[in-house]
């Protein structure tokens, strides 16, 4: 193992100033990546680097990671930032080379697009460099289709492509964003997979049929664990808090008036009512097995629950059917609402208008949906109404949080209620634990 070599003091101090400045920049980069770093961590990093020196890159990396990264996720993020910040000379050369190649490829793509667009009727649609670059990435078939559409309707007063330029641009932008989303997926898939935990950190939508029994087993184990935790919390050993004099004196009578055993007052638990509104439309089919299990898990943990299922229509699930998973699954599939389109506004309106009222200040509304609904404005209005009636509104979204920025529907709903991502079994478990504990008044 390499340990600091003896170096003249002036040089060390000069180097140290440079590295301190680098460390400050590095800390701010880590903060930008979402790692929480306070002055204590930075001070610790300085102290440890003074002790260990800067010569051995691996030791510096491990020491800084120990100080800055406080979880597995932080570690993965730290590694990425460190490797791109503290570069070795070979890496710098490789990056320069890559940048040069990428610039050449970009220039080439723009020139090619200029050549192809020259003299065609598409020039007015692709005027900026970014658009030309994107055009060059289209397949030949797509390029031809664009030309055909423009040829067919050019000069048509009603369907003139120039009138629809904005729409074409928005479709184009959306397709680029979708591509970006896929690329991010691919990169994250490599970076964030935790080999030991594997399945529970994987996107539920990527599960294969063979994974489902294991995932269901995991959810069952989770349910048992959460129920155990809640029961344990309700029956706390309680050697703290206010003394319950009545019970203490009563117990003292058994020992001739000596107060050998002291009783403490227990906090009265106020149970919240849960109203679950679950989307069982076509876009949620992939998640349905897990969502139904999840609902069952919640109803086991929290007794005071009402479950509503919706797609284009809405119905209330029978509490008796919820007790058996197979029966519940069949019941949902035969209900007539399963696998159709989504109309959240209509479903919520029914709940909001129902007499006697379903929602009250002591209830928590839990919406389980991917937020893809028709008449979104209507849905937003009804969510706001529900929020005014219910004590709390939570939204469980099976779409990963990193994709919400690409989806307008998710963005809108996130602004008006607490949205929790439940795209993986791990997230589903955390959400359930949080909700069940909240419902028990803890």
């Amino acid at each position, binding site marked *: 193992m390499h340990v600091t070599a003896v170096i003249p003091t002036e040089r060390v101090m000069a180097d140290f100033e440079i590295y301190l400045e680098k460390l400050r920049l590095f800390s701010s980069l880590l903060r930008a990546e979402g790692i929480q770093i306070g002055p204590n961590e930075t001070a*610790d990093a300085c102290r440890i680097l003074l002790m260990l020196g800067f010569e051995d890159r691996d030791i510096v990396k491990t020491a800084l990671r120990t100080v800055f990264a406080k979880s597995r996720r932080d570690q993965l993020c730290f590694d990425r930032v460190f490797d791109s910040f503290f570069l070795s000379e070979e890496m710098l050369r490789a990056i320069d080379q890559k940048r040069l190649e990428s610039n050449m490829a970009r220039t080439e793509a723009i020139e090619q697009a200029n050549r192809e667009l020259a003299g065609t009727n598409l020039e007015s649609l692709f005027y900026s460099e970014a658009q030309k670059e994107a055009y060059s990435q289209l397949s030949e078939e797509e390029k031809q289709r664009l030309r055909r559409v423009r040829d067919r309707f050019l000069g048509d007063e009603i369907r003139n492509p120039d009138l629809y330029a904005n729409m074409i641009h928005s479709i184009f932008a959306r397709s680029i964003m979708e591509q970006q989303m896929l690329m991010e997926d691919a990169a994250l898939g490599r970076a964030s997979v935790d080999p030991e935990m594997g399945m529970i950190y994987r996107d539920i939508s990527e599960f294969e049929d063979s994974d489902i029994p294991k995932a269901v087993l995991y959810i069952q184990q989770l349910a048992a664990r959460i129920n155990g935790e809640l029961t344990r919390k309700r029956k706390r050993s309680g050697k703290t808090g206010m003394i319950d004099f009545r019970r203490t004196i009563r117990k003292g009578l058994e020992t001739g008036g000596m107060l050998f055993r002291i009783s403490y007052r227990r906090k009265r638990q106020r149970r919240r009512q849960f109203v679950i509104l679950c989307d069982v439309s076509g876009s949620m089919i992939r998640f349905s097995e897990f969502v139904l299990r999840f609902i069952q898990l919640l109803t086991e943990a929290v007794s005071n629950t009402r479950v509503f299922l919706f797609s284009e229509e809405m119905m209330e699930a029978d509490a008796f059917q919820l007790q058996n998973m197979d029966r519940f699954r069949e019941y949902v599939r035969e209900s007539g609402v399963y696998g159709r389109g989504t109309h959240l506004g209509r479903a919520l309106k029914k709940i909001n208008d129902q007499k006697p009222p379903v929602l009250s200040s002591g209830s928590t509304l839990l919406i389980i949906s991917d937020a893809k609904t028709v008449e979104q404005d209507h849905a937003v209005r009804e969510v706001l109404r529900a929020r005014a009636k219910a004590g709390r509104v939570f939204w469980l979204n099976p779409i990963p949080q990193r994709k919400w920025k690409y989806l307008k529907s998710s963005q809108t709903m996130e602004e008006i209620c607490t949205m929790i991502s439940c795209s993986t079994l791990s997230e589903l478990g955390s959400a359930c634990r949080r909700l069940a504990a909240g419902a028990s008044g803890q």
Partner: protein
Amino acid sequence: MDLVTLKQKFEEEKYICDDHLVTVLYVALQLGRPLLIEGAAGVGKTEIAKVMADALGRDLVRLQCYEGLDESKSLYEWNYQKQLLSIQINMGKTNEEELTRSLFSDEYLLERPLLRSIRSKKPVVLLIDEIDKSDEEFEAFLLELLSDHQVSIPEIGTIRAESIPFVVLTSNRARPISDALRRRCAYLYIEYPEPEKELRILRAKVPGVDERLAVQIVSAVHGFRDNEAILKKPSIAETLDWASALQALGVRDLTQEILKDTVGFVLKNNEDIETVLNSVNACCGDDETGDRYACHCGHSHGESHG
């Protein structure tokens, strides 16, 4: 103590570790920060605290966490019954104020691990094991101790640490640990070891194990870990158990039959055992020769299948 000495000490204790682990321990030790260790069950988290205590020549104080653990079990408790008896015996004999004062003295204080660790004259290694099993309230209660090395007892006041313990917290990630606690700790994540490292651990911990068998065991265990259908991955502890069991049975070669008979030592979940047995039957079902073991279902076929 420097890095090289610390590594030597670990080697003397037969704890096979790499430079990365030693650096993390050194950083935590030098900064006086508690060390939070996460990782799957059985990868050697608790062992680190034990070896660290031996390496530093300190006593190990252990607090095993569980649901419902509170300060009366972890920090201190007044010996209430003894106090009552003392009141009855000394009633009328002693001055009232003096009696009250004496009731809240060390004589009636039952020290629990946390208090013992900070009142010890010599610094100790404090192991707070499986912190994820305790309640969130207990985590919050630990914050004062971990950041300021002091605890507050209402009847006595604030007790400052007489010596600063080296604190090791372990977690299996059964539930997320709060950010407040994480912020106060240095962090280490232990992954399952690489095959070469696991082989070295196996040789060190199960002396006399047949070299070929050791390689087969490690290869099979890594196969199980790579198999996503196996929910509870086998850890190093299970590898060692399996090796010891096979050694006790006098096995020198890991065949399919032996695997079927002894897989319970390495996989502790019925569904996982069935998955492995089904995979073995599916890919080696027609092969009744009892060939040497290993393929993608967690085993190697040896020379016969390549």
